[in-house]
């Protein structure tokens, strides 16, 4: 079986600085992988490169998504093929209602896949259903995208999009940042509801806390642009006790 995501010896530069120095990992359908590591270890860079954010130069290695060369695809093409990035800091788009944004995005993806666009009633029914499951009032969807949303609302909006688009690879970049414990639980429940055998998740986080709610199958520790240790969920607990310092030495 082809892996869902294969990152092989990935090397990435930003301007003159190399951030990733040969990163390798394989993610299969149905798995949840956690990537942990201190600030500056390259976790967010990895998520950005997979999603295709401009400004990063891949100088070596490759990324295969369902066996296809991901780096050859435009970022919107990757989205249509099922790559979803839940942003650490979702942006605000004034004047564009969340509802309009969701519909434009979902239809753009469907169109790119050669599927018919959603009819308005079908779309509304779908959104209502998903929003209710995430405790998102419909009023919130009439506001500008993320404009004036609280931290919790922004993250729930990310999960809402994930649920609507049904991507096969979800990358959650520091989903716990800026969330109190209740908001975190709501968002995590939303994510857990999306776990399925044909979908994989890569959860990027500093803290073990999030992994109490979204329990991973695999944990990778990153330091200085490399994966320095991989293991099961118990590795996260170990880290909580001993910290990252030992790995920083190992990477050096």
């Amino acid at each position, binding site marked *: 079986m082809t892996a869902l995501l294969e990152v092989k010896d990935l090397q990435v530069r930003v301007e003159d600085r190399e951030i990733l120095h040969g990163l390798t990992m394989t993610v299969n359908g149905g798995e949840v992988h956690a990537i942990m590591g201190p600030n500056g270890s390259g976790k967010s860079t990895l998520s950005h490169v997979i999603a295709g954010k401009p400004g990063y130069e891949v100088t070596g290695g490759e990324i295969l998504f369902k066996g296809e060369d991901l780096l050859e695809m435009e970022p919107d093409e990757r989205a249509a093929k099922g790559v979803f990035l839940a942003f650490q800091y979702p942006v605000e*788009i004034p004047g564009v209602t969340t509802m309009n944004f969701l519909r434009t995005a979902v239809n753009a993806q469907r169109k790119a896949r050669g599927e018919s666009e959603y009819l308005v009633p079908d779309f509304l029914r779908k959104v209502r259903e998903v929003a209710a499951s995430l405790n998102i009032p419909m009023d919130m969807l009439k506001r500008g995208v993320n404009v004036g949303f609280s931290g919790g609302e922004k993250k729930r909006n990310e999960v809402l999009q994930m649920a609507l688009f049904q991507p096969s690879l979800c990358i959650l970049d520091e989903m716990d940042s800026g969330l109190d414990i209740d908001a975190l639980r709501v968002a995590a429940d939303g994510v857990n509801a999306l776990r399925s055998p044909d979908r994989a998740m890569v959860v990027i986080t500093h803290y073990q806390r999030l992994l109490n709610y979204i329990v991973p199958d695999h944990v990778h520790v990153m330091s200085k642009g490399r994966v320095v240790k991989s293991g099961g969920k118990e590795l996260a607990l170990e880290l909580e006790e001993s910290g990252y310092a030992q790995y920083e030495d190992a990477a050096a």
Partner: protein
Amino acid sequence: MAAVQETVDRVRQIDVDQYRYGFETIIESEKAPKGLSEDTVRYISAKKNEPAWMLEWRLEAYRRWLTMEEPKWARVEYPKIDFQDLYYYSAPKPKKTIGSIDEIDPEILETYKKLGIPLREIEALEGVVRPEGERRIAVDAVFDSVSVATTFQKELKQAGVIFMPISEAIREHPELVKQYLGTVVPTSDNFYATLNSAVFSDGSFVYVPPGVRCPMELSTYFRINERNTGQFERTLIIADKGAYVSYLEGCTAPQRDENQLHAAVVELVTLDDAEIKYSTVQNWYPGNSEGKGGIYNFVTKRGDCRGDNSKISWTQVETGSAITWKYPSCILRGDNSRGEFYSIAISNGYQQVDSGTKMIHLGKNTTSRIISKGIAAGKSQNTYRGLVTAHRKATNARNFTACDSLLIGDQCGAHTVPYIEAKNASTLFEHEATTSKISEDVLFYCIQRGLSQEEAVGLVVNGFVKDVLQQLPMEFAVEAQKLISISLEGSVG
């Protein structure tokens, strides 16, 4: 390549190909001799069978114009215009006297059809499938210097509304024209307004009698076709006591290498409790990607809230013209009167826009609101210039102004030049201004959700201008939204 850089590059490629209205209609026309003199003025007046008083009015304006100088204060640059190298009058050569729409030159009908303007009432009624509740629109079509057709005249007449070419109004309703023409924009007002007063050839005239709510939207569609021709239209709209009218104006021109001059004057008058809503979607040819060609749009638009509790609202979507010099203004003379100005000005390529408004508060408890959205891309310069002033007697005058500018790329400029004068201590004027660049992060967020680069820019820009789009009549808003995407995106058609 960075997303914004790509947008910038794409925007840079925008060329004449993107201008959908750039075709020329081949038609025989009748022109005044080139150049400007008293004879030109007499020629135009004679062509229009005007009464002597009108000719005198024009000549007086012409003599005054000779003593005036071109204004230089706007932030626009262009080579000196040779006013003797222009045709001041051009009319499609009539095959015979036009009695009905069937006798209009089919080439002209075809032109308006291509532009999506129905001139046949039958077409207007039965044409496309019309969404429920959509209003019908009466159209006055101005082709170069003359009005070629005005639809729905009968139905409007029943309501008591006069909607006709101004050249006809001068002959048929001289008392109304005499009473109001030049009372809002005097013949001596400014260089281009004075020139217009001397040589204007056609335009629309609207009179809505007391207490009448005009039963449909009125619209004028301006088309410059002939080469080296200036278009000088004159529009006069009067809403008598308690009347209401909504008026739309659209403009296009063929693409040509040389610049063409458009110097219009629009005067609005509202008496007690009356309201005029004036909307413009201006899409004159903007010139090609090297800045060659395009229309010089030097326009004077002003409304006079002459009566108490009256209201004038300007909404404009400016996407075309090589140079725009335009300040639709309101004189708030009547007590409790209200002026509004909503503007979207988009500039791209080498376009130069210097536009804004004047709100002149004279009466008590007068209020005004200015919402201006400027979007600059390419190598364009986009300036908002506005004046808000309260006279000594304008007790409790209120103004709120918000000017937002959005920059796309790093070779364009946005400028805000507000003038604020308050001579009455009870005045309350508020001014807000922001300038932002279209953000790389916002674009990437949209693209990560599956939108293409161009869809993302279109979405963000339409969000930026939303407050103003909402002011447009429904049919126009949809059209304007599309136009905004076309103006900015290059490859999306």
